[in-house]
């Protein structure tokens, strides 16, 4: 037992006697509320066409995990721009959504590789902070892309998380004028995106007056947990008229629970993200809608922003990326893989 104490005391005493590091101060970023911001659609109008980037410039992206379609699509967007601009491009991700240290290692390993700029999509708000500090020391600019927010990030590109929930709430207000009971299936507790999406929905729909949010429970982004939670809520509130889930995976779990309860006609179900399964479910009439944040286009916008910053343009700290409520009415417009057509459709909104 003495050894343990000695070990610990020695360890901490040792640590106490060592080195000094520098720290810097920056207003902690809140990507939804940051006043220094702009919408992606104003980029060309305010800052002109894309600046020339020297061919062969090295750019890199580090995202959460490639097991999730969202992050594969984001990488596709990066790759589109990298190819168009003739850049050298590397895209890496951790093994799984929870692998915080693995992602940190990957990010740190890339910093020494001579990249002109790196785009980080961290697992959590904190896990890539050492890499950001290291990159700063090495003079490599970092762009924080969707959806965890590094508090010290100098530049952030991503969607307005709160807007996702607001969009869905607005649909209920427009299409269910009589109001009624609704429920929210939340993502991982403590995750910024989950909290903001839920808040956007709940605040907007409660303000309408005739709606009641009877349940708001976390299902940790899991389809199975969402299924179970929705089944329980439906038993408790048989007169429920709608669900809002913080992502599409969970929404599809909710759809199954609603179908199992035989309430597909009565209950509208919305998700967030716009994954391909969600589009299929909307076409099949199972899912009422989703708020698509267009990951491929987001990736394109993000890398464009990175290149504008490299060229010395003084962009606002936050650039908001596109999002739109997709339902059976407009699903074919937004399902296009032609990014130019998609940009046009979104700009026409």
């Amino acid at each position, binding site marked *: 037992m003495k050894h343990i104490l000695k070990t610990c005391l020695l360890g901490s005493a040792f640590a106490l006697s060592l080195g000094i590091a520098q720290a810097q101060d920056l207003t902690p970023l809140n990507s939804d509320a940051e006043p220094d911001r702009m919408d992606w659609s104003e980029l060309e109008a305010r800052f002109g066409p894309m600046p020339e980037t020297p061919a062969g410039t090295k750019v890199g992206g580090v995202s959460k995990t490639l097991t999730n379609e969202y992050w594969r699509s984001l990488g596709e967007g990066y790759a589109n721009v990298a190819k168009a601009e003739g850049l050298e491009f590397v895209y890496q991700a951790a093994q799984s959504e929870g692998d*915080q240290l693995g992602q940190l290692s990957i990010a740190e390993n890339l910093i020494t590789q001579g990249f002109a700029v790196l785009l980080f999509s961290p697992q959590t708000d904190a896990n890539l902070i050492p890499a950001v500090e290291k990159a700063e020391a090495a003079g490599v600019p970092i762009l924080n892309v969707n959806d965890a927010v590094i508090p010290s990030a100098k530049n952030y590109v991503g969607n307005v998380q709160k807007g996702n929930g607001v969009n869905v709430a607005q649909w209920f207000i427009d299409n269910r004028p009589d109001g009624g009971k609704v429920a929210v299936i939340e993502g991982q507790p403590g995750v910024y995106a989950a909290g903001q999406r839920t808040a956007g929905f709940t605040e907007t729909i409660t303000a309408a007056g005739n709606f009641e949010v009877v349940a708001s429970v976390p299902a940790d982004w899991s389809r199975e947990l969402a299924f179970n939670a929705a089944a329980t809520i439906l038993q408790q509130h048989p007169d429920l008229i709608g669900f809002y889930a913080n992502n599409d995976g969970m929404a599809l779990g909710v759809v199954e629970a609603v179908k199992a309860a035989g309430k597909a006609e009565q209950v509208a179900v919305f998700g967030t993200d716009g994954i391909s399964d969600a589009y299929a479910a909307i076409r099949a009439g199972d899912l009422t809608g989703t708020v698509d944040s267009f990951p491929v286009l987001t990736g394109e916008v993000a890398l464009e922003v990175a290149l504008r910053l490299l060229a010395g343009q003084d962009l606002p700290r936050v650039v908001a990326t596109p999002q739109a409520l997709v339902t059976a009415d407009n699903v074919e417009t937004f399902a296009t893989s032609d990014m130019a057509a998609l940009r046009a459709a979104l700009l026409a909104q």
Partner: protein
Amino acid sequence: MTKSPFRHLRLRDAGTLLGLLLIGGVFAVLTPVFLTAPNLLNILQQSSINACIALGMTLVIISGGIDLSVGPVAALSAVVGAALMVGGAPIAVAVLAALGVGMLCGLMNGVLITLGGLQPFIVTLGGLSLYRALALIFTGGTPIFGLPDGFRALTNGTLLGVPNPVVVVAVLALLAWVVLNKTPLGEYLMAVGGNAEAARISGVPVTLTKLAAYMISGALAAVAALILLGRLGAAEPTMGNLWELDAIAAAAIGGASLMGGRGSIIGTLVGCIILGALRNGLTLMNVQAFYQLLATGIIIIVAMLIDRATAGKEGH
């Protein structure tokens, strides 16, 4: 009887080291950056947290147990330590409190296993959920930011060019090696893990030995948490996800037997560096994470096969 297992360990350590040199050699040829001093330090720094956890795991495994709860124990220690620091407590007090939390969790695991007579796997599996839940409840799920710079400086500084976390873990490893090889506790751990009943009959304090192993593991989880806390500048209740698996992998590559009674501090350290070097080298070569996982799996299995082959040669 006392000499032959010791000799076997040294032989096994040489094998692990050879594996590391082989992997390092391949990467050195394939990517020029790999063998530069900053990158090697990078590997050590990235391996230091896993190494810290794996040292405790090795002692527990040698005693015939397993500790699956290390990640959540680290998270709980981190959020308690961070909350104290942000609340204005002196850094030393917060550090001791974090270590105390780690040891307390280890004590609870140990008591349930020894006095409660429960299986280590199940107890620490329960702990995996329990301590994670406590960390989440304590913080309400949100990270604690705003740690004092004085604390962060401890982990972000260097000693003669070597990052402090590497120095701290090296010292801890030396202590663990001394404990295992030069003290009665080390002999007890080996004896208890080899054959608990025989050890009991020959007068080894089995209960105390196991308690010590789990408490050391808890304390080292807290040390790992403190290192990461300083590096991140924030305490997250989700910290330490899947740490137990990396630590077990490192111990196994280093020659620890999950049946107990066998394991090596040097082997575990080299195992950690192998895993770190693998991840680093494959990232430098821009190999996707899925293949890194594949490589890790292959190396663990190859290490086990070599283990089996060499153990067979010694005839027992």
